[in-house]
């Protein structure tokens, strides 16, 4: 076996790894030009074509249009049920031969009106709804929703709850990036990677199941804290993960990072400059792959991220390979944070003792009529949240995940809006795919790592 080629990643990404927070200089040097993404006419990379117009263009299927030899352009439909479109993403592609000219992501196939549903659920029920958005990283949606509710309530969360949230979120980030490794590998032809990524993710999900009762859609992080304390012996389970996963990541390095076919498939594919990423509001690994060091955990610390040490991983070329390498190394950074949390986890309550949002303990209900009424009120009517509006953002594995919450003073949100990083990042697709081959398009879609549950909500 060859030595794990971590150095290879560092070399190819040029590893300008940012250590201490250096506010004011997220990127060294030139941001490049955003001209390419500002075009709005026919030269734009975005194909602005409606269904009706596409139908007219396509004409009668029994009587295909006979173009001249020069006119080799065609509109090609890809998806929504295409194995490499990650769920139900559909692309309208304008092709010339095998080259993609313009394209348009068509979304909404998974739209279930979750923002509308949120208006009919109490604040305590809210996390059950948002957790179904980004199903690969459900804890982050729960977290941003809970943070927003707590901001409106003016509620302090006990330290242990904060650290449990951090532990779970970092493991979730690792699980989500492991899933990316699996799907990305499969999309570009390293099919065995599918099994390996899934295998490691399963180990993390097993821990989640032990803590939250569920492998996905946990409803674990709730306004006021978390649903339950960590089970006895959780340290052993976490240590087992910390021993198990890093050697497997080194195996990924052997299998993928240093492998010429894999690199050939990703390097130089789907390139973007920092200015373009900023103009398109892209966040997360897509923005960082351009060399722009912006990570909310470091730059606008929430929870207790200012008390742990970790590096923000950035790329240099803004291509699909950098996005792969960033996610791989972010797993390592997440595990590094988890390791520190093992030592730093404080004792105490796992949820706030504010009686307004926390039901009385079970034993009290047997003794006290008031406790019973209180319990009943919290779970039927729900607790009231003061009038106001707020926005809470967290760094999810895909970028900035924000929750905009409006309260009219009642027990249910007046309006809840999730700023989904997948939804916004999807706008980069036409620009990343422009001028490339359709086969590279598959690598590009994969490197953006959209989760359609969050795109369509």
């Amino acid at each position: 076996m060859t030595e794990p080629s971590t150095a290879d990643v560092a070399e190819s990404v040029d590893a300008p790894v940012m250590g201490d927070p250096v506010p004011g200089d997220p990127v060294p040097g030139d941001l490049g030009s955003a001209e390419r993404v500002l075009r709005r006419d026919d030269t734009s990379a975005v194909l602005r074509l409606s269904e009706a117009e596409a139908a007219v263009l396509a004409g009668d299927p029994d009587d295909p249009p006979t173009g001249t030899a020069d006119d080799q352009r065609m509109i090609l439909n890809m998806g929504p049920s295409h194995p490499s479109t990650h769920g139900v993403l559909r692309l309208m592609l304008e092709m010339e031969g095998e080259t993609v000219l313009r394209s348009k992501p068509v979304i909404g196939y998974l739209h279930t009106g979750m923002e509308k549903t949120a208006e009919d659920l109490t604040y305590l029920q809210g996390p059950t709804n948002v957790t179904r958005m980004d199903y690969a990283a459900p804890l982050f949606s729960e977290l941003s929703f809970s943070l927003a509710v707590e901001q409106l309530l003016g509620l302090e969360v006990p330290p242990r709850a904060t650290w449990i949230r951090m532990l779970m979120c970092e493991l979730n980030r690792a699980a989500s990036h492991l899933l990316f490794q699996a799907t990305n590998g499969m999309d570009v032809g390293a099919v065995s990677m599918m099994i390996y990524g899934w295998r490691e993710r399963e180990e993390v999900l097993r821990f989640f199941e032990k803590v939250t009762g569920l492998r996905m859609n946990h409803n674990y992080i709730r306004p006021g804290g978390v649903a339950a304390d960590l089970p006895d012996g959780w340290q052993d389970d976490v240590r087992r993960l910390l021993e198990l996963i890093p050697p497997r990541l080194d195996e990924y390095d052997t299998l993928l990072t240093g492998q010429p076919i894999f690199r050939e498939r990703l390097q130089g594919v789907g390139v973007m400059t920092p200015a373009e990423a900023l103009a398109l509001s892209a966040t997360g690994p897509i923005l960082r792959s351009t060399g722009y060091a912006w990570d909310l955990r470091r730059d606008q610390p929430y929870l207790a991220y200012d008390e742990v040490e970790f590096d923000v991983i950035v790329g240099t070329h803004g291509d699909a390979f950098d996005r792969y390498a960033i996610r791989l190394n972010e797993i390592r950074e997440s595990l590094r944070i988890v390791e520190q949390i093992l030592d730093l986890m404080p004792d105490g309550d796992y949820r706030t003792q504010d009686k307004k949002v926390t039901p009385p303990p079970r034993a009290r209900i047997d003794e006290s009529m008031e406790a019973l009424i209180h319990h009943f009120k919290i779970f039927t009517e729900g607790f009231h949240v003061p009038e106001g509006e707020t926005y809470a953002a967290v760094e999810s594995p895909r970028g900035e995940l924000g929750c905009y919450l409006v309260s009219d003073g009642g027990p249910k949100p007046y309006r809840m809006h999730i700023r989904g990083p997948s939804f916004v990042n999807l706008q980069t697709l036409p620009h990343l795919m422009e001028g490339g081959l359709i086969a590279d398009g598959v690598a590009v879609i994969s490197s953006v790592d959209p989760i359609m549950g969050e795109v369509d909500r």
Partner: protein
Amino acid sequence: MSDEQVEEGATADEAVEAPTGPTAYGVPVVDASGQEVLHPSPDTWLETVTALKDDGFCMAIDVTAVDYSAHPGRTDLPDGVQPERFEVVASFIRHDDGRRVRLRAQVPESDPVVPSLFDLFPGTEAMEREAFDLVGVRFEGHPDPTRILMPEDWNGHPLRRDVAMGRIPVQFKDAPAPR
């Protein structure tokens, strides 16, 4: 031509707002639980965002809209800002000091239009389409003002408060046997 009108409109607004509260970028500003919220009107929307962009705000984080028709008597607006049925909410961030601002523009039901931010921040394209699709506020000058999440032939805008919550009836008894 329209520039002058906008200027006039802006000064007229300021004349009303002048004696009240603090302003930033020429529009009223309030502090909402530690977050900076600006209240431009649809007329000053584009100017305010341009001023923000010139001041180093490099990324449009979010654009969304709220229908306030079921929440009369709001108290979180600064003096001089008339509540309207719709509100367009946009967030921006500056990376050199991490400062965030949120813009809330009151948009009347009779003319639910605000200028599109596409030429300043092309990343708002999908967000504005979503706000149009779900709440029905139009963004003037948007390159592709079509529905994004709902089907193209859908009628109405589901996140408006006068659209009923959909429900699937749950049958508890006398349900037909599975076979």
